[in-house]
């Protein structure tokens, strides 16, 4: 398997449009220099938003407030259910309310370093800048953040940071922020500028003369396929961790929207940058449908350990202190249990590899609250983590107040996504990607409590200030009518594909193929990757794809609610994306953040970056079904945070 290298690294198609000047001034200068759309003209523009998680709901609400006409689509039955809702721990902001040395610059610095120097400095600086506005905005919306007795906002600390900058609402921060955005969105639905379509899945982007002009959507209840046109299309459809089948993502999270966009010309950036979250509940058997995350905030008070003796079969509470290995505290004394996620996950993986895992399947490590309960009392722990402990007990039937939790890493977040410039526009003019769907701010590893921050930054504050730069050129132009040939073709494509799924009439269910794909991906493109494994995975994915299109069995019809048919389309796209992930991982001959190539590690097993040859964003261009994607490179420069070997010791 060879990968195609673009002859011109820093290809002209990949202009990130980074504004000049000192990094502190770039966002303000940019907002001043972009073209504006005056308030009276905004109602002449139509914008389509796909997805109603944090990014989509906040963007659609903000567009509505500005006066644009917005159509927003979600596959969920309500705009309140996007998977942002499951984020537990918190949201970062550089308020420095704790007087502990935090600043915008420090949040920027931590995020660039945490991303292992594979993100765009200018984007990250902007993210840190608007983080404070997010807290102000969401408080004004009535998000019930945790408070101190004086009535001011409380904070806690998170992995990868030495300051307390994480704002939270019990263990349900994502839920509360999403409900805030959903409520802002519903207010705009009531006022009028936003039209909301629930149980509606986007299945194709329409591109005319190189510009995105609309989408094709399936009504998941009636099966009706409709075309919708607009001046711009914004994808806010989340990440692709479900390519692993078992992940912490919701069952319906999928990559179809971004993948369809990729096939229509949007470059896919850093597909191999995935995050395996260290604190999830280990799988119990082969019928498991998904994995459940336990918030990283638990690492504030929980201590991670395994028995010193791999054959120690005693109950955890019977194992004395000196026979426990608190391996994170031992290996990383400065950060201890609060090392970044990639570091914590790989350390757990090494314990399991050394056969030191715990639990019935020896597939976990302990997260122990005994010491914290002794120090702070059970009531304090209950206040901080009560709902998480309950959630854990429901799933495992074990009481974490009495017995240490068992945890193990699981796929959780994807840093990769559609390539976007500083305006969050993809390589297809008029097509934007925001939130987890783009690749922009987290480099090769995302820090905890930064996903909520990025989703809301993109939706509330960035795209409402950048989309006007594109739209202003189309003043007084009508959107392409939906009976245009480009829409007819896109609708026909969608119908034809649906019919194909129904016509295969093989013997295996969609889940059968999805599970097998998940096994391949976690084994070969998960926590550790090797050339040999990735090459094997690519061959096996291709064989699996062929088998899928030959032996899939989808019952029912396409003119009714048909969940197997919905999933078939998503898994078909995952099969193609999986191959690209492996090819990207193969091409990147270095280890960085969540991408760990076993061939590239330091003597003590840490990721070994190659800044000489790999300080770039990989952006893959779709060619056609028979030809592998072509690689383009966006070089990364670091003017403010000089790349260094990340050390959390």
């Amino acid at each position, binding site marked *: 398997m060879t990968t195609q290298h673009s002859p011109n690294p820093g290809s002209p198609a990949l202009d990130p449009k980074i504004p000049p000047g000192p990094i502190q001034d770039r966002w303000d200068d940019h907002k001043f220099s972009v073209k504006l759309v005056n308030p009276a003209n905004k109602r002449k523009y139509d914008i389509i938003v796909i997805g109603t998680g944090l990014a989509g709901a906040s963007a659609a609400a903000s567009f509505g407030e500005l006066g644009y006409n917005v159509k927003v689509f979600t596959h969920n039955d*309500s705009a309140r259910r996007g998977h942002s809702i499951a984020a537990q721990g918190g949201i970062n902001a550089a308020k420095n309310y704790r007087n502990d040395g935090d600043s915008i610059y420090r949040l920027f610095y931590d995020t660039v370093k945490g991303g292992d120097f594979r993100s765009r400095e200018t984007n990250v600086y902007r993210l840190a800048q608007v983080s404070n506005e997010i807290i102000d905005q969401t408080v004004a919306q009535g998000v019930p953040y945790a408070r101190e007795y004086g009535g001011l906002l409380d904070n806690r600390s998170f992995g990868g940071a030495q300051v307390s900058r994480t704002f939270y609402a019990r263990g349900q921060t994502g839920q509360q922020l999403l409900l805030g955005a959903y409520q802002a969105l519903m207010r705009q639905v009531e006022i009028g500028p936003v039209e909301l379509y629930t149980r509606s899945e986007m299945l194709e982007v329409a591109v005319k003369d190189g510009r995105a002009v609309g989408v094709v959507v399936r009504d998941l209840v009636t099966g009706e396929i409709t075309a919708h046109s607009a001046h711009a299309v914004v994808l806010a459809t989340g990440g692709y961790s479900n390519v692993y089948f078992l992940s912490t993502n919701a069952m319906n999270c999928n990559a179809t929207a971004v993948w369809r966009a990729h096939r229509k010309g949007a470059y896919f950036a850093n597909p191999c940058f995935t995050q395996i979250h260290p604190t999830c509940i280990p799988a119990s058997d082969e019928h498991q449908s998904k994995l459940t995350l336990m918030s990283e905030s638990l690492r504030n008070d929980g201590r991670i350990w395994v028995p010193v003796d791999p054959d120690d079969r005693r109950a955890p509470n019977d194992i004395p202190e000196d026979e426990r290995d608190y391996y994170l505290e031992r290996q990383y004394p400065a950060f201890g249990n609060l090392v970044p996620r990639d570091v914590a996950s790989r350390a757990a993986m090494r314990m399991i590899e050394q056969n030191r895992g715990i639990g019935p399947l020896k597939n976990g490590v302990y997260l122990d609250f005994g010491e914290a309960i002794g120090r702070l009392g059970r009531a304090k722990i209950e206040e901080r983590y009560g709902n998480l402990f309950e959630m854990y007990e429901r799933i495992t039937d074990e009481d974490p107040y009495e017995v240490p939790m068992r945890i193990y890493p699981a796929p959780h977040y994807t840093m990769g996504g559609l390539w976007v410039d500083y305006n969050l526009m993809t390589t297809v003019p008029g097509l934007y990607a925001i939130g987890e769907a783009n690749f922009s701010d987290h480099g090769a590893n995302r820090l905890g409590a930064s996903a909520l921050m990025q989703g809301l930054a993109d939706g509330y504050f960035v795209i409402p200030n950048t989309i006007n730069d594109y739209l202003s050129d189309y003043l007084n132009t009508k959107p392409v009518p939906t009976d245009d040939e480009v829409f007819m073709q896109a609708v026909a494509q969608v119908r034809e594909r649906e019919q194909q799924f129904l016509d295969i009439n093989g013997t295996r269910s969609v889940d059968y193929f999805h599970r097998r794909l998940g096994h391949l991906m976690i084994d070969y493109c998960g926590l550790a990757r090797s050339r040999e494994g990735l090459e094997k995975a690519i061959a096996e994915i291709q064989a699996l794809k062929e088998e899928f299109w030959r032996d899939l069995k989808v019952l029912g019809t396409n003119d009714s609610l048909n969940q197997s048919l919905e999933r078939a389309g998503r898994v078909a796209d995952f099969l193609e994306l999986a191959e690209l992930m492996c090819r990207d991982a193969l091409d990147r001959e270095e280890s960085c953040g969540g991408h760990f190539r076993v061939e590239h590690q330091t003597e003590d097993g840490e990721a070994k970056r190659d800044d000489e040859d790999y300080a770039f964003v990989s952006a893959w261009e779709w060619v056609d079904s028979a030809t592998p994607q072509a690689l383009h490179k966006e070089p990364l420069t670091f003017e403010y945070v000089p790349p260094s070997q990340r050390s959390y010791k």
Partner: protein
Amino acid sequence: MDLTLKVWRQASSETEGEFKTYPASNVSPDASFLEMLDEVNEHLNEIGEEPIAFDSDCREGICGTCGLMINGYPHGPQDGTATCQLHMRKFNDGDSITIEPWRATAFPVLRDLIVDRSPFDEIIQAGGYISVNTGAAQDANNLPVPKEAADASMDAAACIGCAACVAACPNSAANLFTAAKMQQLNLLPQGNPERYSRAVAMVETMEQYFGSCTNHGECEKACPKNISIDFIGMMNRDYVKAQFKFTARDAQNKGK
């Protein structure tokens, strides 16, 4: 475990439905209820019968997408638990389990176990928000919020919008949902300026779709987040106060 399932099957909102019986064999006690149904669906697909349609998404009890009537109880027998968090260890080998969709006139069945809960969105749309545009906010710490208020608001805000409260109510009332969503905002200083108009708008929209509350308290029992019916009392208080306020204001306006 070996179980017998009696499942409601219905092709669409236009067609009649019926119970069908399916065996579920070799069920692991560690499987979740929905994973058990996944397995049954795999089997149905194999033998050429269309799988049972049911809604679920996060499968960790927070998104509120799932919701089944299990042996007549919304979300099944375990208190404070959404359907997706219910595990088979709560059942016994040989059990017969009846599975139905939420039953309420306001929630038509779309297919099998899936219902349309969009009236909940209508209630939020009517006033379940604080009117603040993006960018207009002051510094977050300029407005202290008493911890007690923030905690009480959070207790209400924990609602996941699953609609078990409606399914449990003999009148199919949505008072617990509406009250939780309203009081989450009304309890905070930020929510105060719109407190009474919000109460009227949300209650009156609720009443277009749902039955009336007669204080059975079934909703609280069924709620997977244990939301207290105290919030219904607070909602009623705000609604009644709003009537006096608005009547007084209308009278004043007439006098002018």
